[in-house]
């Protein structure tokens, strides 16, 4: 009896709620530790990125306009779907990242929990970050956080799933939409995560996921005029400079986390702090007379 030939999946981009191939037609082979072909993957182009920004821009007002409760439920649904696909993620991570399935299992569990944490934050951070201000004179004055808009996310190379979700979740819970470039070294988790988003009631365009090369895409992420902010992690000093320099052109908000070590991503105190949400909200202050 001959051994059964496995079906090698080609993972596509997740863009505007659909799974298109890259417009460039380029694919790469993902190999496991033994050098066996495991899957095929799209190598996103700059044009794919621009298309994704259009989708994210289109989706942003409606996403921010949903109730905070609804956004929280959708994040929770993402946690549910991720939990359901946990073994697929464990396999994909274990085949690529040193540390095997024990390490991979820990990363997947922490990723699910991170989504749950931000599902809970979605209708609470407003009361932590906003306030009523005791101004002089007959005025009612209050400050509220609003989403920054469309964010470009550059996920870290290591902790490819947990790092990606740690950057996505705070941005999404406050009404931003995102275009994310997953880990280049370990890209499979990003590709599979698109399937989680697609089955979690996430509206089309709210999350857009690209697999590809930093060297090719980072400059475009930084300089695109319809991107409002950049959330990145695990960047070299050169990459950080490229992001900050490009961002200056339209004054994007930039946060490049200096996290590289595994334990930082597992530090819930730090990574689930409202600080992570505050980085990509804008404080709006409203004045109104309170005398007739």
């Amino acid at each position, binding site marked *: 009896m001959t051994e059964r030939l496995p079906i090698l999946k080609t993972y596509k981009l997740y863009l505007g709620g659909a799974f298109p191939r890259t417009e460039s037609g380029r694919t790469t082979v993902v190999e496991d530790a033994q050098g066996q072909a495991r899957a095929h993957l799209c190598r996103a182009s700059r044009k794919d990125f621009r298309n994704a920004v259009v989708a994210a821009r289109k989706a942003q007002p409606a996403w921010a306009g949903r109730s905070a409760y609804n956004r929280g439920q959708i994040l929770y649904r993402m946690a549910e779907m991720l939990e359901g696909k946990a073994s697929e993620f464990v396999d994909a991570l274990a085949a690529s990242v040193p540390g095997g399935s024990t390490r991979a299992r820990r990363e997947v569990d922490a990723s699910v929990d991170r989504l749950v944490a931000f599902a809970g934050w979605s209708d609470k951070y407003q009361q932590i970050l906003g306030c009523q201000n005791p101004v002089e*004179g007959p005025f009612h004055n209050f400050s509220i956080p*609003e989403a920054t808009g469309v964010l470009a996310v550059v996920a870290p190379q290591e902790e490819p799933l947990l790092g990606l979700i740690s950057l996505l979740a705070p941005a999404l819970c406050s009404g931003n939409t995102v275009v994310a470039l997953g880990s280049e070294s370990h890209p499979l988790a990003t590709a599979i995560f698109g399937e989680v988003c697609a089955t979690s009631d996430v509206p089309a365009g709210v999350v857009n996921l690209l697999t590809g090369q930093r060297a090719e895409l980072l400059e475009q992420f930084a300089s695109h005029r319809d991107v409002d902010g950049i959330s990145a992690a695990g960047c070299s000093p050169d990459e950080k400079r490229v992001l900050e320099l490009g961002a200056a052109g339209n004054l994007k908000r930039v946060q490049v986390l200096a996290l590289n070590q595994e334990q930082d991503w597992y530090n819930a105190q730090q990574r689930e702090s409202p600080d992570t949400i505050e980085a990509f909200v804008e404080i709006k202050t409203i*004045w109104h007379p309170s005398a007739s």
Partner: protein
Amino acid sequence: MSNTTSTWDYAPAPESAPCAIADEYGLFINGEFRPAADGRTLESIEPGTGEVLTRFALASPADIDAAVEAARAAQPAWAALPARERGKYLFRIARRLQERAREFAILETRDGGKPIKEARDVDIPEAAKHFFYYAGWADKLDYAFPGRSAAPVGVCGQIIPWNFPLLMAAWKLAPALACGNTVVLKPAETTPLTALRLAEVLQEVGLPPGVVNIVTGAGETGAALAAHPQVHKLAFTGSTEVGKKLAAMAAGTGKRLTLELGGKSPHIICEDASLDQAVEGIVQGIYFNQGHVCCAGSRLLVQESVQDEVLQKLAARMQQLRVGDPLDKNTDVGAINSAEQLATIQRYLKIGVEEGAELHVSGADLALPTGGYYQKPAYFSGVQPAHRVAREEIFGPVLAVMSFRTPEEAVQRANDTPYGLAAGIWTDKGSKMFALASKLRAGVIWCNTYNRFDATSPFGGFQQSGFGREGGRHGLKAYLQLQAWETTSD
């Protein structure tokens, strides 16, 4: 109408409190005044007269080095002071500003050209309040950001504009000092005097040397400060163009940055607004401080059904504005800050006419002072959204008037700008007001009022009007390194 009611003239009412001005001012470094290392100076012109008011030092790179070094040396001890004691210095500064308020108001008006009633009633009291407000935060920082411990950033470079010289110095200094940072402050080239008088106050209250250093000069002075490797945090208020340059300069350096930049803020008048009050708001929005206000309501969007009535009322109200001697207590619109800014404003007046908008200038027969820099309040009607006078910041008493038909159109037009500093809404219907307020992309929304400021109220922009907030609890954040508390889990 009889002459007795129509032509009553105001008698001149100049503010006359004593305010000595020296012939020359030095840099304030490490608690002492000193000339620039290379002895160079600049002139400060009095915009109300066009005459030279005094001279001040033009800081050289060596002076910037000395100022940053003084701030660096002073920082550990300043941060190590018991927080209550640090706060008490700020309380003292607030008190001395209140006590010397009339002197400061006159100096501000003579150096910058703003009406004395605005310097007296807004700039100086708000500056004092800002120090008083942040004084009280110094020993409460651990409560400001729950779950995170707060440490100072280090040495802050702060660059401020000429439209609210002392108030902007207070906005920058007070939170930085309360958080345990030390500062090198760079005032604007045309308005250095109140910051230097504040330095005298700092000496009076015994602030330790080096905690605040003030370097005067021009654009290159600010650039040298911004580029200094020992400056850990940079705060800038000024134009979007310069803000972008600073952001590019700071790229990859690890310097923290906050920017309060330009605007072209929309001012929306709905048909159900109280129109007389709205017209007062329009005037306050664009003619306050000669329109030298980053958040000025410079784009008026009036609902079509009331446009004619609003413009009639506005034209009539503008005839009542008194333009002239900034030191006169009756003056509503003072002098333009500099000859250069006056030329910019006049260039835009020309551009607007060439683009096809109709220019209306108030007080055709109004006599202006003979010296100095003056511009009568003006507005353009028939403005198209693509016109430069509708898109670019003029920073003068010039309003661009456009109309809209539905609230949705008002929002779409209001948000059609790369800026996002402020917006105004006039309507008597609460639900409409909040619907508009939630859709406008701006950091400050004034509903049925305009150009209100308070130390407790966060101020700052969306989009290309900058990032970071000044005022309130949010204003602390730029000056702190926040660390999640270490917890021992499991």
